[in-house]
């Protein structure tokens, strides 16, 4: 971009912005740090090793082993509209932690500066200050507590003391297993059981870390909570597990971000996220997924096989999933809502962008079990290059879910004639007092809109980014502000090289 030719009348700010946006994958560097690995491959011994590394109680090991024994019996699912070489599960590492983390640092001050620098470089501050994605706010107004996960371990969690005052528990799941076993035992695996699916079962056996959140009754979490996942080590799978419990009348907004270095060999990421909502609780869960998507020839990238589910157990509970999926070579992800409590609500807002050789098969499940439950799905899929983008979703109205309501809108946008956009909704209505509406459209970027932008002096790539941002507006608006800004920029970056 150094030889960028600036036309007359284009102001400096625009030029800067275009420069900033035109970096390819911004997070493709790696951290040179001494790592400790578990031996390559997967066996009962590896499961035992992971458990002992985390110093886990016997019940946790038993749970993992049961999952492992089940996983061995399972077959890898092949129903998604994605195509990738068969994964050799014995040819990767299931545990990698920085050597400096062997002795768990007592506070963030003791953490290896190289690790802190990694997060700084990613724009994630582990200092307890209120900065994320370059947005500065008065300290009291906007704080974000961060749990930073580096390969298999949590590096540290900020603002723990302040959160503790409010009664909120926010820590890594490995700490929670030790410090809050009663909560973990009560809820872990109750939303996504270890028998759920191939990758969730694998995760149950080998998950190494992740975040744990408990919001006590009546508490509105005083700040946004966030987890930042970074895969650094080569040939290493990341298997994190997140468990969030929102007790009665509580509220939390949770953000999740992820990146990985640029490597030639594809890497596996299989996470499980479980949300439990009791009466009148509310969780907002926002994800900006920006794993390395592979290079423009489809080499490398992350295989992102994720199971996310929210169980609205309580009456009037509400969950909102918002996701911006721009990274990963292959995505297989369906954040779901089990609407069990009466009058519970589930919302799903998604932007999935697939460029170059990326393949995304993503969507949601809304399972209405309780009376008067409501769900809303807004999905925007964008395909460019030779990418394939599929929305796959389920809306199910059970016989007892009387007077429930669903509205689904899936729009797909195609940029270029070599990519694909697909919609595979399942609609199951088993009572007549519920109303279900589904609509989907597929079209290309509107020529008139492009022409208008071009006539105003934008180059083609900028114009496409603007039109696409407009197409995604409904979803972007559902994101917390910092994420919305990051997401807008990501939309532009992800479409890099898709025009002309």
């Amino acid at each position, binding site marked *: 971009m150094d030889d960028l030719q600036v036309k007359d009348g284009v102001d400096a700010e625009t030029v800067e912005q275009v420069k900033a946006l035109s970096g390819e994958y911004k997070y493709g560097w790696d951290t040179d740090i001494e790592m400790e690995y578990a031996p390559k491959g997967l066996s009962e011994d590896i499961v035992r090793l992971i458990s002992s590394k985390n110093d886990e109680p016997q019940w946790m090991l038993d749970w993992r082993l049961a999952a492992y024994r089940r996983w061995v019996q399972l077959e890898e699912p*092949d*129903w998604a*509209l994605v*195509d990738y070489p068969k994964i050799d599960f014995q040819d990767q590492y299931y545990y990698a932690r920085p050597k400096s983390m062997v002795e768990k640092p007592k506070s963030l001050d003791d953490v290896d500066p190289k690790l802190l620098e990694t997060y700084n470089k990613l724009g994630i501050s582990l200092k307890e200050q209120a900065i994320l994605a370059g947005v500065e706010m008065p300290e009291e107004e906007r704080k974000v507590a961060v749990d930073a996960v580096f390969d298999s371990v949590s590096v540290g969690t900020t603002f723990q003391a302040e959160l503790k005052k409010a009664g909120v528990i926010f820590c890594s799941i490995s700490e929670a297993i030790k410090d809050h076993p009663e909560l973990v035992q009560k809820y872990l695996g109750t939303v996504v059981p270890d028998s759920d699916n191939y990758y969730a079962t694998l995760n149950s056996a080998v998950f190494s870390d992740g975040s744990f959140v408990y919001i006590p009754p009546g508490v509105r979490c005083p700040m946004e909570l966030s987890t930042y996942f970074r895969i650094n080590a080569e040939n290493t799978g990341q298997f994190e597990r997140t468990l969030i419990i929102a007790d009665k009348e509580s509220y939390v907004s949770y953000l999740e971000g992820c990146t990985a270095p640029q490597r030639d060999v594809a890497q596996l990421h299989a996470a499980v996220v479980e949300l439990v909502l009791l009466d009148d609780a509310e969780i907002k869960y926002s994800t900006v997924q920006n794993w390395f998507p592979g290079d423009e020839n489809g080499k490398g990238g992350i295989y992102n096989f994720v199971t996310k589910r929210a169980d609205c157990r309580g009456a009037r509970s509400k969950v909102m999933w918002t996701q911006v999926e721009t990274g990963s070579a292959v995505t297989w992800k369906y954040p779901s809502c089990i609407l069990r409590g009466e009058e519970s609500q589930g919302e799903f807002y998604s932007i999935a962008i697939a460029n170059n050789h990326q393949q995304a098969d993503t969507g949601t499940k809304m399972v209405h079990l309780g009376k008067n439950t409501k769900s809303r799905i807004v999905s925007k899929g964008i395909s460019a290059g*030779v990418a*394939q983008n599929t929305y796959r979703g389920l809306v199910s*109205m059970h*016989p007892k879910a*009387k007077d429930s309501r669903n509205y689904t809108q899936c729009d*797909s946008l*195609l*940029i*270029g*004639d*070599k*990519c*694909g*956009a*697909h*919609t*595979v*909704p*399942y*609609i*199951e*209505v*088993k*009572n*007549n*007092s*519920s*109303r*279900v*509406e*589904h*609509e*989907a*459209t*597929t*079209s*290309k970027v509107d020529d008139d809109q492009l022409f208008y932008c071009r006539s105003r002096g934008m180059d083609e790539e900028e114009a496409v980014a603007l039109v696409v941002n407009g197409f995604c507006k409904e979803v972007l608006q559902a994101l917390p502000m910092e994420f919305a800004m990051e997401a807008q920029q990501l939309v532009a970056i992800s479409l890099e090289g898709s025009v002309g």
Partner: protein
Amino acid sequence: MVFPPKSTVKSKAKMDLTSAALDQVPTFDGAGWADKARAAARDRVAAMGLPVGRDEYWKYTDPTVFTDTDPRFDGAVAASDVFAGADALTVTIVDGAVTGDLPQIDGLDIQSLADAATADIHWAQDTFGVLEAAGQTNVERPLAAMTTALAQDGLMIQVTADIPQPLRIVYATAGGQANVHHVVKLAPGAGLTILEEGLAGARAATNMEVAVADGARFDHLRVVPVVAQRDLNTHIFARLEADATFRSFTLTPGGAMTRNEAVIDILGDNATAHIAGACLGDGDFHHDDTVFVTHDAVDCESRQVFKKVLRNGAKGIFQGKILVRPDAQKTDGYQISQSLLLDDDSQFLAKPELEIYADDVACSHGSTSGAIDEDALFYLRSRGVPHATAVDLLTLSFMAEAIEEIADPDLADIVLAHLEQTLSARQ
């Protein structure tokens, strides 16, 4: 990249079921063209295996009633007379065998499959079983191959002019099962309307292969009789060349199990395909419309319109797909599936899919489900319309969009009158 179709899992249970069924199918060692096609169809069934409930394509419909060795129903069904008033050429098929003289007029050559099969070579041989085999490309449809293998009769229809008079096919049965296979071949610029009514058997299977050449027109109207105890599975395989028009509408006002599959391949530019259906379900009624439209040419239009009115535990299924292949630019694809659930026991299960590999297209689908509009009902009641009549009126208006797909207004009137009559006759 266009994804290769995912073949169904060939489980042992599936293959055991298949070999047991194939034991009852002749091996077709005849040297004739038809027997060769039947033997190939038999081989396709052996390779694919019969459907089982675990197959994704049978997610919402249990195929057992079609794959069981013995049909569960055995009642007689008399010939129906819905289209008796239409000025049509009529052919009667009793228990799966063509009876009586076949109409012969200029531009329309009709033979029975039983007769045609005895010839050494026949014009139908490039179509018979061929479109069905091609229709297995994206999804396996073993029941269609089974029908090709088993059907001993049906109509081989060659059309070389635009025939103004519809051809009416009336089925009747004394009970048992029947397999019928039709081939319709339309020459460039030719046109034909086919009206189908009645049932070929208490368990009936029908294949219809339709080759529509450049600029040709094919209209198809089907009314299934109100017979509670019958199982029906039908397949339409259509191939459209440039500027061709294909329209099909099916009314199913009752019955037990129905699976209607339509596979439409649009190969020529500027062609149009419309497929529509309306059903009235009551009690032990399970109706599955499975449609697969492939766009492989530019400037083409397709529409799928399906309406289901269900009560007393009836189930309505819609599986629709629009596949737009690379370079099928300027495609206009539309798909709507809606259900009206008249009570709390009925179910609507839908999987409306889009799979699109070309960018300059406008494709959309919609699907809705809900109860009758209380405000509309209240309005009619306040005008003195009795409750049952009001429900029937709203049912008719709900189905209107599908019935409007019938191109010929006189035929649309016949279908509408029959629907009204069926509605008012039921309790």
